[in-house]
């Protein structure tokens, strides 16, 4: 069977859920070979084995993390030359997409980004993408070279398939040209304790209608164990950090439940949440376009509706 490369998405050895999804998808296409860049591969091993990695290739050169993506793309090219994979799967985040872009040029191969599903086809993987603000669903395939596919979070339900993969250390050669853009300072963001936006099952988002007070949004989110999101109007006003923006220039999310409070539902916002399974809106304007999307809507003041709902949800839980 052919090898399918999966670039492991992790923070210091803690494997992210998207990697389990990628490994699950890789098993549909061939034998998953995980590529792990950075320190902590031993910590990651159990999770990689749980989802069926047949082998783990570890790249531990510290220079891979010091610079931006160029050295990582070079490393993957070298791994690909050795393994000759039938496809390469990478998480669809900013870094993943840039690595994939460089790799496509290096390998003279077709690239598909932001897949929401990948299945095996007669002539290689067939991807599904959601385009034009989620108004169209597009099926595509790579017709030249090694298919390189970046996959969005929640594109597959992780299915365990226990293996005990061996770790193979792999020495890479990084060119000087790849070391020209460097990270000179990094300020980590404080952890919120809430689920990650793109991976969350439930998201509660606030917009300009919050008037700047996200406390009721956060309290409601916590009662549901949800992540918090924001519209661009809220982010631009400085009420919530950009990392939480949902929409065209923020995160695209597709949770089981999306709750929009005080958000009008502009096309650019819809682009980021339209494919959510269930949508709820709370907005005081019954004409707000967000109501065109909802499964359930409340016309009312979020400052009244949300706290009352939060209290009731918390009561039911205890």
């Amino acid at each position, binding site marked *: 069977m052919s090898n399918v490369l999966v670039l492991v998405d992790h923070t210091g050895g803690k494997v992210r859920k998207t990697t389990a999804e990628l490994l699950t998808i890789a098993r549909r296409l061939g034998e998953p070979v995980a590529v792990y860049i950075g320190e902590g591969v031993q910590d990651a091993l159990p999770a990689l084995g749980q989802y069926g990695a047949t082998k783990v290739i570890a790249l531990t050169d510290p220079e891979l993390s010091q610079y931006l993506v160029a050295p990582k793309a070079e490393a993957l090219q070298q791994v690909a030359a050795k393994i000759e994979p039938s496809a390469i799967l990478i998480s669809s985040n900013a870094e993943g*997409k840039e690595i994939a872009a460089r790799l*496509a040029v290096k390998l003279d191969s077709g690239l598909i980004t932001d897949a929401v599903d990948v299945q095996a086809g007669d002539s290689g993987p067939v991807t599904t993408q959601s385009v034009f603000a989620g108004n169209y669903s597009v099926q595509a395939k790579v017709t030249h*070279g090694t298919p390189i596919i970046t996959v969005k979070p929640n594109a597959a339900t992780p299915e365990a398939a226990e293996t005990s993969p061996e770790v193979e250390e792999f020495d890479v050669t990084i060119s000087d040209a790849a070391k020209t853009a460097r990270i000179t300072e990094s300020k980590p963001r404080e952890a919120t304790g809430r689920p990650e936006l793109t991976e969350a099952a439930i998201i509660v988002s606030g917009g300009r209608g919050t008037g700047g007070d996200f406390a009721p949004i956060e309290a409601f989110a916590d009662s549901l164990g949800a992540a918090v999101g924001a519209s661009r109007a809220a982010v631009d006003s400085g009420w919530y950090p950009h990392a939480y923006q949902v929409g065209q220039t923020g995160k695209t999310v597709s949770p089981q439940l999306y709750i929009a409070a005080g958000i009008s539902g502009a096309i650019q916002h819809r682009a980021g949440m339209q494919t959510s399974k269930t949508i709820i809106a709370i907005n005081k304007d019954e004409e707000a376009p967000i109501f065109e999307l909802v499964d359930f809507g409340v016309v009312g003041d979020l400052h009244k509706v949300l706290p009352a709902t939060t209290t*009731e949800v918390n009561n039911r839980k205890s």
Partner: protein
Amino acid sequence: MKIVVCAKFVPDATADRRFRSEDNTVDRAGVDGLLSELDEYAVETALTVKEAGEGEVTILTVGPEQAADAIKKGLQMGADAGVHVNDEGIHGSDAVATSLILAKALGKLEADLVVFGMASTDGSMGVVPAMVSERLGLPAVTLGSSVTVEGTTVRIRRDGDTASDTVEGTLPLVLSVSDQSGEPRYPSFKGIMAAKKKPVETWSLADLEISPDQVGAASAFTEVTEVTARPPRSAGTIVTDEDGSGAAQLVEFLSTNKFL
């Protein structure tokens, strides 16, 4: 310093965007289009860099006849010149091919600083800047939410998911900016009048020594096999909170649908 902004002409997001039924490519000719709003941030950054030091700003676009509008908008905002790569053979090019055309044109322009938007508002792949950087062998600092240029050092702040980073590179270099990088200016009346006299060159594939079999639909590395319009969402239940019953009904909905 020669600053070049890569700017894309895209179908208007607020109008009807569609695919051509004959070949499943994005319909760019039959619809209203404009300079991608996210590339306006790139134009703004280029103009700010120029104003803070020195240089000349050129708008480079690859696209059909109407894409000249994207250049015009950039010139009205204050750019100095435009280059339009327009050739029958380009239709249906994917990102890999587009990056080849841009890289060849940038080589010919001898750009010191190349500024990109974060993603095009139609394809929204966000991959072309990295591809061009790879092809030109130039460093790339991407997704800048603020940019400073001091001498030959370009420094950006990049707000990622887990950290806020400072990233540095040396000219010549490829830069991409996010929509957090500063509001694009509106063209002034003076700017609109001045734009009419600014030089715009049109280049063909032959001008760039690209053979037609390297780009276009026939040589694309990806193929769209099926396009399906998303079925409209079925109308939901909407209640009014007039009597304060909104919360109770919302809880009921959450409970019935097993979210509690």
